[in-house]
Structure formats: C-alpha cells, structure tokens
C-alpha cells in the first residue's frame, strides 16, 4: 500500500497554550497535594534565609547604633589623642575656640588592698568630663546634667567587676601607687568607653588631682591623653575638624571625629558579618543538595501526572513552567518565613550581644539585608531545582503504558545548563553584594567547591572500594551494602553534605587540641611567671637587684620600651594602607618600640644583617618578617616613626623571623642605639620562677618597693589566650554545626527520595518472610555505613587541613589524636543511622496487603 503525500502533511500543529497563564492555573491545582512533601525543603530554606537575614540585620543595627550614637561613643564631636604627653598648647587653645574641652588620662595601674593586687585600667578625668552622656553610678543619686561626679581628692569609682574580684565595696580603701584611695561608688556605665569585646582590666575612675597624688604620672609612663571637644556650634564641625587636622598634621596628635567613632569595631562588625553570611550561604548551598533531592523525589511521584498531561497534549515547555511555578511558590513560602524570622530574630540576638557591646542598639527592620537574604533563598532554590525540573519535561507520555518509575537520566538540554551557569553568576553577585569583599567571597566559594569536589572524589573511591567487597552472608548486611553501592544511590550527596560539616569539626577539634597542648607545654617550659611593665629608667637597676635576689627566680630579662606611631612605611603614608590587611594592626595604633646594639636572643635574621654593636650613624630598623611581607616592605625600605611629636626616619636593614606564639618579648621594630634613648621611656622585664612560691615572692617584693610598676601574670594572660582560642574555635564550630544542620536536610531529602523504593522493597521482603526487625537492621546498617563513609572522608580531609594549619601556619609539630577521630567517626555514623532510621520508620509500619494491590 502507498500513502499519498498529497492527502497528508507533516506540518507541525500550532503549539497551543503553553503560556505562563495556563501553567499558573495547572500549578495552582497541582500544588494541593504537594506541600507536605516539601517540609524539609521549606525548613532548610527558611533556616538559611533566616540566618543570613538575621546576621545582616544585626550588623546593620550595630552600624546604625554606632553612627546614631557617635557623639556618645566619642565623648564629644572631636577627640584628640596623644601618648606620653598632653597635646601641644597651641592645639588646645585652637580647639578651645570652637567649644568646650574635657581632658582624660588613661593608663594601666595596680590596685591593691590588704590581700590582693590587680591590674586595672585607670582613667583620670577633669571637671568637664563627661561632655556627652551621663555615667551611672550605683549607690549614689542619679547625676543630672551639670552636677559634678563624686570624685573628690583621694576617691575613686570602680568597675562592678572589682567588687567581685577584690571584694571592694563603697567606702572601702585601697592603694594605687603609693597613695590610699577610697571607693566612692560603683561605675555601672561609662558613656565614652570604647566599644570592644576585649578590655584590659576593669576600670577605675578618678580625678586629675588624685592621679597626680598617686605619683604614677611620671615621664615615660605609658599614659594616653585624650582631649575631647564639644562644639558650641554644630555648623562649625567641618571648619573645626579641618583647622584641627591642619594643626595636628605632624602626626603626634591623633584626631578622630564622629565618622570614626568606633574604628576597630567597625572592621570587627564587617568581618564577623562576612564570616557569618558565608556560613549561612554554605548552609544554603549544602541545603541545596537536599532541595534538589526533595524536588527530584517529588517530581518522581508526579511522573504519572506529567505523563498524563503530555498524553493530553501538554508541550514540554508547559510541563517545565507548571512545575517550576510550584517549586518557586513553595520556595517563596520558605523564603517569606525565613524573612519574617530574620526580621524578628535580631531582637533576641541583640539581647544576647548587649552584655558585650556597649552601643545602645535599637532594632528596626532593615530592608536591604532582608532582600539580599531573600535573593539568596530564591536563587539557590531555582539553581538546585533547575536540573530535576529540566529532566521532568523529558518524562515521556509512553510511561503511562510501560510503568517506568525512574526519572529520565543524563544531562538536561543545553539551554538549561546555560540558565544554570547564569544563575550561578547571579548567586556569586549576590554573595559579593552581601560581603563586599571579592577576594574573600571568591576564596570562600572556591574553597567550598574544592572541598565538595574532594569529598565527591573520596565518596566515589569509597563506593568503588565497597563494590569490590564480597557480598556478606548476613542478609540485612547484604541489603544495606547493595543499597549503597547500587547505581543512583544517594551516597555521594550524603557524603558531601555531612562530610563538609564533619571535616570542619575534625579540623577544629584536632587544631584546638594541638594548639592547647602547645600552649600548655610552652607555659610549663618557656613561660615567665610575670611581665613587669612601667619600670622607670631610674628604677631598673634596683628592680633587677630585687628580682634577681628573690630566691627561686631563675632568670630575669629586661628591655627598654616606648611607644610611637608609624606614620609612613615604604614611602607610603600609614593611612593609605588597606586596614583589612592582616598586619594593619602595626599601623593602626601606637606600637611598642625598643632599641638594641645586639640582635635579640630570639628570632632569626632572614634578610639583611644586624648593625655593628658600636653603630652610631643615622637611624636603622629591624622588622619582623610576617608583617613586612604583609605590608609589602623589605630590606632597603624606610619607616617613619612619630615619637612624642618627633619624626624619626629609619632604614630597614634586616628582617627577623619571630615566633609570636612564644613567651619571649618581641617587637615588630627594633631600632639602632642612639635614637630613642633620650625620649622618656620605661622598661619592661620578665621573671622566670622555679615554683609558685618564688613567683608570688618576686611580685610581692617588687610591689613593696615600687608602687608604680604593674605586674601582668602570664598565667592570667594564658587563660585569656586559651579563652580567645576557645571563642575562635566555637565560632568555627558554629560553621560546622550549621553545615551539619544543612546536612540533615540532605539526609531527610534522601530518605524522602527513596521512600517509594523503600516501601516497595519492604513489602516484597515482608511477603518473602522478612521480619520488621530484619528490615530495620538492614536500614540501620545502610545509614550507619553512610555515616561511616561520610565520617571517614571527613577524617581524611579534616586531618590534612589541621596538619597544614599547624605545620605550615603555626609552624609547629602536628600530633594526631586518634581517640578524637574515632569519636567523630562513631558519632557521625550513629547520628546518620538514627536520623535515617527515624525518617524511614514510617515506611516500615505500613501493612503489605493494600500496597501489594498498588504495586
């Protein structure tokens, strides 16, 4: 038979309605039964968006708090700060023309009562202080504007911490220097106290007269002088700032205005925000694997509907749009919930932070961080849903007849890969908008991708290894092994999701153990008992006699010291350096400087050479290697110091490699002799004791003889260091915790995606006589094995990361802690097994008969 082409044609028919309108109508009807399948998806999305939005909102609130309270934080409109000496008289008289002035002096000192001596942060104020705000003093009536503080001669106000540490109460007496003072009140709030998480000793407040009477105000004593100006006329702000800047251009006086009310803290907020936003983003990305799993599982369950729609004439594009709309509707709900949480959560976060941050923070809704968080949620959902959605449109209508249950395999069409690439770029753009740090964002995302690739590779190797194992005789074990090694098993995504979190945990735990052990070892081997500071040049010889003469003191080291500011480095002004540079701290404040004819005992010279011991030419400087590298200078470059208003230009002639973690006294800059000796300076000393009794004795002997010398206990300093390391560890562990929570989403998605298969398997197994216990054991083994694999991969990566950190960054010996690794592995396996089983338990309870009719 022949078909006549004239009566037939193969012209494609009009595509019909595949527009968004019809897709929306179909999506609205279809979504009814789908919401419950997206609990995990919704939860993961909500958490990620809420975390990013909360961090952004809190950071904005804190920035607002700082800019809104700048005068309070600064204690006026302009602050002029000098070290060792008052600002020059001409600067003071110029400032006076613009408004009211208040002076303060700050230094460290020892507060002593009958039993104890404690390092405190002493602050002496004049009658005009405070220019802005009102201090809160417990035990006295509220101080109204204009009323003077209860700071008569010989009286002090103390930080509440001192009532606990030394048992001091109002009316008690104590000694500062050689002078007896009476506690006149407890200082609960100090208006212009700088914003900081770390403080050097509790505050005591006194009048200028009392400070003079203590005898601590000696040449060379490290005293910070602050002159605060409250403008009479706010319209003169620009003019006053410009005039004072011009008058203080030599660099001796540091000037700050309202725009710079909390300098270090701004950087801290920015960095913390970036860190936490990236943590949130990682969680979202890992959660994204769960999203992809959930969407794939859901679409698998909708395959008959998709095939039916295609049978009824729906084009592929309409299928894609219909299901995309549903996913994005659900994602929209998750994102909206996350945004609501992010708008509310900062209230609680700020409540928690208020004990650390002295800025008054009022909470408001900040649209930008919320919009960025919502953007992350929407874009991540789209990115991870795209692949399964693109495959869904390939479901064939013929499936209705053939009962095929698996989603089409392979890559989606090229156009969808293109859309995925564009979406990735949008995500990177959003990350950049949130962090404003291209390098950090790029390295974080690059690092995460590298870790994921590594985990994926390790997962693949482990799965291939398992495939080579002979099948166990025990049936549940055989079932578990085959479930993991079968093609399309979710083992890879679970290893990536859990492995990432566990890797961070192993890295942190191993590194912390190594660092703590190192510190403990060094404390017992190398650490001095005390650092003594503020030793006057006239006192140093007697000090040495007393210290060396105390029985049980094995060694006493000493070094002269004064502080100066680095105004230029390598021909560049200090202000022109990027303050986010890891070594910018060198340029930020006043640096401790010393001089020496001979090289320090610690620290190897790695470039250049030391000056002759009798050198007396133009100033030369020695600099530490890490800081020199970070700041881009080396031998032959110049550095300009400002010491008490005097400009000292020195050539860097050698570079020292210094171990900052050691307890020896190290300086970034050491100058050649003959430059600084004439300036008022003090000495610092270290004492090494054979035992606790000797340590206590040397401190007591020095205190008895010299009231002005402050002693810093190394034990306390080490405790502080350990606390800081603990805090850092906790911050990084937060990352691990968040990624582990995201890993849960992936596991839950995996359980959901295999539910139909699991149900069918369990029914058949039950029909064949398997008990529920046997099936439970098989599933428990399967998930435990998944956990062990994830933990094994994490152990390998975590150990390598920790080894690299300890050996390379900290340049010390790495020691493996097998117990810790074992605990992590076991915990990972147990956690995965229990959680997986809980998810699968619902399936196990179903009776076989009704299901057999469906299968």
């Amino acid at each position, binding site marked *: 038979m022949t078909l006549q082409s004239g009566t037939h044609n193969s012209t494609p028919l009009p595509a019909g309605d595949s527009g968004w309108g019809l897709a929306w109508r179909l999506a609205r009807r279809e979504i009814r039964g*789908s919401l419950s399948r997206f609990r995990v998806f919704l939860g993961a999305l909500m958490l990620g968006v809420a975390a990013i939005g909360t961090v952004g909102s809190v950071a904005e609130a804190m920035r607002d708090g700082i800019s809104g309270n700048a005068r309070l934080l600064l204690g006026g409109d302009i602050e002029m700060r000098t070290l060792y000496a008052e600002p020059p008289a001409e600067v003071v008289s110029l400032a006076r023309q613009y408004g009211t002035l208040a002076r303060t002096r700050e230094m460290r000192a020892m507060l002593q009562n009958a039993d104890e001596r404690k390092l405190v942060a002493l602050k002496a104020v004049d009658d005009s202080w405070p220019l802005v705000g009102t201090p809160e003093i417990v035990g006295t009536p509220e101080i109204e504007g204009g009323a003077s503080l209860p700071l008569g001669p010989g009286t002090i106000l103390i930080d509440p911490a001192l009532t606990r540490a030394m048992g001091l109460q109002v009316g008690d007496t104590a000694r500062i220097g050689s002078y007896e003072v009476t506690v006149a009140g407890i200082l609960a709030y100090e208006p212009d106290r700088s914003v900081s998480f770390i403080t050097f000793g509790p505050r005591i407040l006194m009048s200028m007269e009392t400070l003079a009477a203590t005898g601590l105000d000696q040449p060379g004593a490290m005293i910070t002088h602050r002159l605060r100006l409250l403008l009479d006329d706010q319209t003169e702000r620009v003019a006053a700032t410009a005039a004072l800047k011009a008058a203080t251009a030599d660099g001796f006086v540091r000037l700050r205005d309202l725009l710079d009310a909390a300098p270090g803290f701004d950087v801290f907020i920015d960095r913390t925000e970036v860190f936490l936003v990236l943590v949130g983003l990682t969680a979202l990305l890992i959660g994204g694997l769960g999203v992809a799993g959930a969407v794939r599982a859901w679409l698998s369950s909708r395959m008959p509907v998709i095939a*039916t729609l295609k049978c009824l004439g*729906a084009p592929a594009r309409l299928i894609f749009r219909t299901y995309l709309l549903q996913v994005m509707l659900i994602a929209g709900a998750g994102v909206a919930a996350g945004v609501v949480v992010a708008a509310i959560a900062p209230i609680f976060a700020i409540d928690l932070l208020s004990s650390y941050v002295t800025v008054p923070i009022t909470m408001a809704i900040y649209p930008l961080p919320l919009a960025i968080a919502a953007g992350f949620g929407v874009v991540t959902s789209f990115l991870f849903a795209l692949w399964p959605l693109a495959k869904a449109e390939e479901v064939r209508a013929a499936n209705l007849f053939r009962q095929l249950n698996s989603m089409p395999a392979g890559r989606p069409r090229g156009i969808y890969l293109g859309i995925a690439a564009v979406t990735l770029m949008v995500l990177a753009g959003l990350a950049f908008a949130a962090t404003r740090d291209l390098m950090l964002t790029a390295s974080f995302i690059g690092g995460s991708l590298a870790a994921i690739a590594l985990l994926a590779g390790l997962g693949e190797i482990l799965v291939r290894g398992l495939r080579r194992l002979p099948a166990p005789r025990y049936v549940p074990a055989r079932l578990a092994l085959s479930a993991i090694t079968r093609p399309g098993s979710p083992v890879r995504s679970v290893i990536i999701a859990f492995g990432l979190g566990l890797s961070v945990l192993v890295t942190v735990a191993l590194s912390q153990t190594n660092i703590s052990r190192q510190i403990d070892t060094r404390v017992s081997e190398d650490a001095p008992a005390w650092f003594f500071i503020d030793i006057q040049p006239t006192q140093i010889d007697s000090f040495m006699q007393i210290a060396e003469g105390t029985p049980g003191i094995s060694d006493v080291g000493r070094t002269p010291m004064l502080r100066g500011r680095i105004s230029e480095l390598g021909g560049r002004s200090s202000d022109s350096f990027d303050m986010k540079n890891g070594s910018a701290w060198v340029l930020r404040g006043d640096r401790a400087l010393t001089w020496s004819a001979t090289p320090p005992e610690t620290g190897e010279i790695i470039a250049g050479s030391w000056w002759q011991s009798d050198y007396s030419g133009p100033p030369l400087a020695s600099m530490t290697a890490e800081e020199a590298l970070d700041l881009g200078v080396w031998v032959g470059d110049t550095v300009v110091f400002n010491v008490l208003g005097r400009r000292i230009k020195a050539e860097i002639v050698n570079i020292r490699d210094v171990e900052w973690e050691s307890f020896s006294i190290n300086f970034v800059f050491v100058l050649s002799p003959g430059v600084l000796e004439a300036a008022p300076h003090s000495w610092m000393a270290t004492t090494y004791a054979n035992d606790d009794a000797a340590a206590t004795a040397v401190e007591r002997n020095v205190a008895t003889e010299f009231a002005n010398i402050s002693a810093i206990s190394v034990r306390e300093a080490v405790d502080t260091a350990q606390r800081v390391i603990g805090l850092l560890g906790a911050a990084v562990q937060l990352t691990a915790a968040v990624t582990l929570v995201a890993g849960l989403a992936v596991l839950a998605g995996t359980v959901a995606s295999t539910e139909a298969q699991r149900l069918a398997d369990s029914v058949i197994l039950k029909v064949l006589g398997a008990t529920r216990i046997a099936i439970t054991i098989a599933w428990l083994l399967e998930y435990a094995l998944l956990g062990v694999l994830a933990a094994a991969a994490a152990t390998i990566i975590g150990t390598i990361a920790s080894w690299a950190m300890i050996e390379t960054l900290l340049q010390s010996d790495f020691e493996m802690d097998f117990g810790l690794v074992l605990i992590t592995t076991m915990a990972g396996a147990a956690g995965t097994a229990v959680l997986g089983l809980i998810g699968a338990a619902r399936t196990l309870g179903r009776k076989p008969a009704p299901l057999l009719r469906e299968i």
Partner: protein
Amino acid sequence: MHTPDPDIGSTSSASSAVIHLLEARLSLSSADGMVEILRGISLAIGAGETVGVLGPSGAGKTSLLMIMAGLESLTTGRIDLAGFDITRMPEDSLAALRRDHVGIVFQAFRLIPSMTAVQNVAVPLELAGRQDAQERAAAALASVGLDHRMTHLPDQLSGGEQQRVAIARAIAPRPRILLADEPTGNLDSGTSEKVIATLFDATRAAGAALVLVTHDAALAERCGRVLTIEDGQITDDRVTAAGAAHQ
C-alpha cells in the same frame, strides 16, 4: 471472515482513514538485545469505525496503541494520524495533535489526583486555549452522567466513576480518534458494563473512530471490527456481526 486487502490492509479506504499504518515496525532494546515488538503492520481505520484489538499478553496490542497515540516512534514504516504524517513528528507537535484529535482512556484511569473531576476534564481544552473549557468540560461530564460529581476529587469517586470522568476527558475536545487500553480492566463486571456503554455512546456521539484494546473477546465483538495480534503481527482482521449489521 473478512480477508484483509494485501495493499490496503483494512476495510476502510486509505483516503477516508483517520489512522493509517504502512509496514509499521517497532523494535525496542532490552538486556538481551533488540526485541521486535511490531513486525510490519499495515492497516487503515476509518472515521467513526469501532475496532477491537485482541491478542495474548506480550503480543504487541499496547505497543500498537502507543504507536497510534504518537507515544512511541516507529523503527521503520509510516503512520498517518488524522491526515498528518506523524512518523517523524517532533514531540511537542505530537502533543498538540493528541490534544486536538486523539482521546485516550487508560486501564488505570490516570486522572490527576489533585484536580477535581471537572478540572481533569478541562485540562485538554485548556491546553488548546479554549475560553469555554470549564463549560465544555461540565457538558462532557453531564454526558457521561456525572453532573453531580463535578467538584469531587478522584479519590472521592468510585472506580467506575473515575473511568467515566476519564472518558469525558477523552471526548471533551471532540477528537477524531479514541484509543482505549483495557478500559474495564480495573472494574467489576456490573460497573464495566456501564462504562462500556458510556464509551460506545460517547464515541458515537463524537463521531470518532474507536480502537479498543482488550482481553475480553465478548467486548471486542461489540465493535464493528476485530483485529487479532499475535507475535507483533495481525493474524486476523474481520468485521463482526455488530459491524455487519451497522453496514
């Protein structure tokens, strides 16, 4: 018994046929290599004709139906449907052809569980962009006696009612071809009778050709023509008593 014309292969002339197959062959891959499912089938089915397809399991009945629905592509040969050569037609064009010209009734009903009865029936009409989709869907449901079940979801309907909704969905766009795969396979005999009556009435009212795949010889005999397929080939093609009476 009617003897098939060696060239035409059916009782209908090629020019009036709505389904026309020429040397249709279908091979599918399996673990043991390629399996030949249909082995050179030629046949023509005319407008308004009712054809029962009988044959043992695995003979190729369902595959033949899938070929006729444009859900499976021929390995070799040619197929015309409603005047269109669909042998190598792109998938979206095939979907549009089904939407406009082919209604399908499945053994397992294949209603969309999240949609009400009337929404299910309206889907192909909406796909065709018809503004009166809801009204026509309601009329189609009324024509199968389910005007009181319009807003019920599939799981609120009995098996027989679900299949009648599926029939209403298949006939609502007034297709030229109606394909039914074991439409009573999931139903008891009483319900089956009601559904079959509905199917024949609806086909007649729509003036469509009906191809009915079944294991039930008695049911096949109610069609005007019966094809028997064995091992991928048509071994018998005859006009039934009902067909003869109609002619």
